[in-house]
């Protein structure tokens, strides 16, 4: 290995990348800084507040009038339930579509993958008509039902299922295990890395979803966090210290997920790109 002095090109690269990091990070820093200021300091544009306070967080998280805790809970329920459902159905679909032989298999796969091209903007109108007539508006199920299975996840899981050797499945069959038990006890443990990737992306996607939850819930107690934040901020006027605190609260779980699973997230992003 050469331990020569770094080339001027490398130093310049570090310089550009560091400056760029500031651009990428500054909005987050400014949000946090603003969330630590009270109403008298918020319009003093100082990066480090004179008297940092957690009062805004107390207000957003614990005050009687704040609906943020409820919205937080709603988002958590929606994101967790859809993710569990997507993991189960997408892996079952991916398994069936890669390891079974039956008539119509390719047509079904093409049918499912083709739904990826339909933009959500188009579907929300019939979904709303459906939710209205079935009395699903302002219910958790109403917010969740469009996301219970993900076509992208089916595509992803099918790719992974193809790497499982058929011998393993056949051996389990010889042991006399039922087909569904084989899927649960033999197949699923072998694809846990793929399941982890799918779970993380689905959780992030559902936590951040905006358009459909905005339509599916009209009562504030059924808002998800993004919808609640949009609504709250729209009415907060010039209470920017509260808006920035709300934004920080909405981001917190994702930043936690991100820091915990950064390797899987980066690998997942790279995978969707390279396999696409």
């Amino acid at each position, binding site marked *: 290995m050469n331990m020569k002095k770094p080339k001027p090109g*490398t130093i310049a*690269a*570090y310089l550009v*990348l560091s400056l*760029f*990091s500031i651009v*990428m*990070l500054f*909005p987050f820093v*400014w*949000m946090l800084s*603003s969330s630590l200021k009270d109403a008298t300091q918020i*319009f003093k*544009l100082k990066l480090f507040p004179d008297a940092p306070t957690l009062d805004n967080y107390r207000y957003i998280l614990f005050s009687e009038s704040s609906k943020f805790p409820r919205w937080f809970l709603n988002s958590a329920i929606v994101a967790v339930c859809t993710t569990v459902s997507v993991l189960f*159905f997408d892996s079952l*679909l991916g398994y069936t579509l890669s390891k*079974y*032989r039956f*008539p119509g*298999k390719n047509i*079904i796969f093409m*049918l*499912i993958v083709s*739904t990826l091209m339909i*933009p959500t*903007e*188009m*579907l929300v*109108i019939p*979904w*709303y008509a459906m939710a209205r007539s079935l009395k699903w508006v302002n219910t958790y199920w109403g917010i969740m039902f*469009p996301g*219970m*299975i993900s*076509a992208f996840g089916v595509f992803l899981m099918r790719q992974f299922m193809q790497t499982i050797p058929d011998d393993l499945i056949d051996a389990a069959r010889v042991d006399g295990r039922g087909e*569904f038990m084989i899927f649960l006890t033999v197949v699923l443990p072998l694809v846990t890395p793929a399941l982890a990737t799918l779970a993380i992306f689905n959780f992030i996607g559902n936590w*951040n979803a*905006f358009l459909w939850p*905005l339509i599916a819930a009209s009562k504030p107690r059924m808002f998800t966090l*993004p919808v609640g934040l*949009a609504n709250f*901020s*729209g009415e907060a006027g010039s209470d*920017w210290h509260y*808006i*920035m605190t709300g*934004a920080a609260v*909405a*981001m917190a779980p*994702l*930043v936690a997920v*991100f820091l915990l699973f*950064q390797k899987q*997230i*980066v690998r997942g*992003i*790279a995978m969707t*790109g*390279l396999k*696409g």
Partner: protein
Amino acid sequence: MTLATKRAITAYTFLALPLVFFICVRLGPMLYMLVMSFSDWGLLRKQTRFIGLGNYVTIFSDPVFLQSLGNTMRYAIFGAPAVIAISLSIALLLDLIPKGKALFRLIYVLPYITPIVAVSWVWRWMYLQPPLGVINELLMAIGLPAQGFLNSPDQALQSIMAVNVWAELGYCTTIFLAGLQTIPKEISEAARIDGANGRLLLFKVTLPLLLPITLFLTVMEGIQFLRIFTQVYNMSFQAMGGPLNSTKSAALYIYQKAFTNFEMAQAASASLVLFVIIMTVTAIQLKFFDKKMNY
């Protein structure tokens, strides 16, 4: 019953519920939209009649719809290439440095995974007029004039577009970097031995090898910008797509038609127009790159 039949029955049992889902929640609604776009379906009307191409005539003679289509194209035509160009440059720089790749990448991906609603409000706060907006204060501190940003009909669209570029960069940088890392070192070394300098290597070896990824990302980002909604909803005053409709995207127009005016059928027609645009733009991009790749 043969074993094969038995397996096929098992397979269909596993598929039954998901198939019902895809038919009822994806394909069915899509067809429903297509049919209803020829009707006068509205939530405030008791009866629904078929009116042929009436909705298409209505929306195409609505200057606001035409403006929203123009805005949508501007988001995509300027936004997507900007994301590609910047993220590619950043990925090439990241590929140069021996240490710290992972940390930089982590920082760049952060905006991509955070809720768009939250970052939209953070940017809205930063874009405020002086003396409240931090960006304007920074501009003035270095002797530049304050800008209107979201308040200015001439700058609001670009201001929202910039936020989306900022949010998408990490995604594209990560994919470009992964692509760069799959290029075998032997190829660049062989080119160097043949006397290729850095620039020749970049334009004759690295970039052509990245072309399939560039194609994929251009298509993905094109679609992303054509569908822009949440940013516009949260960054324009009262979610109206203003000032003077200058930021209103087709997706926001569809939302307002359906859920503010309750003209569901007109919204259906507008959403089909958007769908056709997305498909056409994607097809053109695929074709364009197809030609470029056959050398």
